[in-house]
């Protein structure tokens, strides 16, 4: 991965009224990292991600992207949500185009990128379909294609596969790794699934229970494609599990 800091979070604190959710969190994400963030259920993982991009206003601290305050209108950030966030009135193709239209990408390049990412996520055949005509996994693939088509500097993913069955999850995880390897986009991937974190991330950041802080960041240099049954994989998974364990 790069040796340049992509995201720098300094003393991030977030309160909802009197409830302290994020407590003085500091960490860095390097350029090209695929950072998986895991933590106990309800520890504030989504709050953490939403605070990074100003969906929630932070109480104190500083978040920098490439050394500048995060501004989604000026910086190229994409976010894949837990639930379906495709625009139901747009076809698959128009959904993938959506971010490119906002960013005023020239039409030739726009067409090229739409073709490329529709092909990568295997939805070329369904380009004229509306979201209501698609399955849950296809919808998530539309969101992935829409996010990657903007060729973001930073991609945030909030448990995007949480509601999918195991087979589809594996498929989309492989797809994400393939896209990440191709594009070298910096990705922050929130999950409650430890196996998923070990399978995907080149770094794993473990959060504590509320009030949330960073417990530990682990470098994951297991070779790809990763084998979930290999002893090293199991060892790392157990290590992360022990760090999360609150029972």
């Amino acid at each position, binding site marked *: 991965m790069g040796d340049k800091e992509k995201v720098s979070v300094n003393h991030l604190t977030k309160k909802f009224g009197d409830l302290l959710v994020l407590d003085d969190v500091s960490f860095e994400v390097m350029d090209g990292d695929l950072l998986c963030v895991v933590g106990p259920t309800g520890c504030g993982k989504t709050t953490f991600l939403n605070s990074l991009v100003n969906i929630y206003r932070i109480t104190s601290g500083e978040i920098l992207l490439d050394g500048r305050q995060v501004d989604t209108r000026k910086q190229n950030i994409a976010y894949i949500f837990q639930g379906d*966030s495709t*625009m139901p*009135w747009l076809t698959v193709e128009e959904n993938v185009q959506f971010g490119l239209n906002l960013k005023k990408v020239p039409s030739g390049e726009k067409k090229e990128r739409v073709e490329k990412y529709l092909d990568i996520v295997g939805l070329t055949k369904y380009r004229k379909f509306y979201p209501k005509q698609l399955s849950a996994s296809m919808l998530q693939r539309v969101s992935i294609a829409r996010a990657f088509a903007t060729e973001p500097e930073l991609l945030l993913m909030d448990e995007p596969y949480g509601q999918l069955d195991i087979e589809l999850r594996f498929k989309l995880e492989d797809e994400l790794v393939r896209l990440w390897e191709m594009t070298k986009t910096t990705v922050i991937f929130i999950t409650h699934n430890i196996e998923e974190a070990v399978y995907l991330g080149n770094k794993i950041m473990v959060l504590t229970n509320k009030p949330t802080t960073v417990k530990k960041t682990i470098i994951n240099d297991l070779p790809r494609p990763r084998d979930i049954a290999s002893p090293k994989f199991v060892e790392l998974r157990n290590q992360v599990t022990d760090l999360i364990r609150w029972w």
Partner: protein
Amino acid sequence: MNEKVKERLLSVLCAVISIGLFLGFWWWGTQRTQLGKLLPDPGTVFTAMCGYITGTVGKCSLLMHMLSSLRRVLIGFVIGSLAGVSLGLLMGRYALARAVFNPLYRVIRPIPPIAWIPISIIWLGLGEQAKIFLIILAAFANTTLNAMTGARDVDPELINAARMLGAKEGQIFRTIVIPAAVPAIFAGLQVGISSSWASVVAAEMIKAENGLGWIIQAGMDNNNMSQILAGIIMIGVGGFALTCIMRTIEGVMCRWNKSGR
């Protein structure tokens, strides 16, 4: 024969049977009961209607009267619904617009359009403007509420997704809020068009030289029950046609809102 065709045929058959039964009871009532003293039978009304269509009632044919009413409705409905949808979308999206306009709107909304008739006559006289004013009010009241609800209930995840992709507020309003509110807007337009149609008839019954309301009023003045019924039937037909047209437009604009392949 596929399921859809079967379903369609069945619904047409049911409609024919129910209308047939209604006409049958009407005919039976006029022939066998005291109802005959109050109402002409369906055949007499149908013959009178044919005469009004090919000939004249007052200064023009029944269809021309219907077109006069339709013209008033369309002018008033377009103005009223454009104003209503615009205000509703703004109130749905922006708290400040809601805080400023909603209290006034909530007071005006429950007032039935016919309650405005005296004021409209005083302000605008007995001509076209007063009638169109009433229709504007009828369309405005219904469309505003639905557009506001549609804009307010947009899935926040869609707005966040657009914001994350770099959308500014104006782009969010244009590319997310408006399209997401379209089904709710159409629900309001459906009610608005029915309400406009009802209002035009009421307005024409006060003072007009043509239109379906005038036909009914003139029929009452002349004690011509067939003419009154012809006017009433054409109101029903006109209202039904407008609703069907609106539903067809909605079907095209909201084709994305249908599930299944």
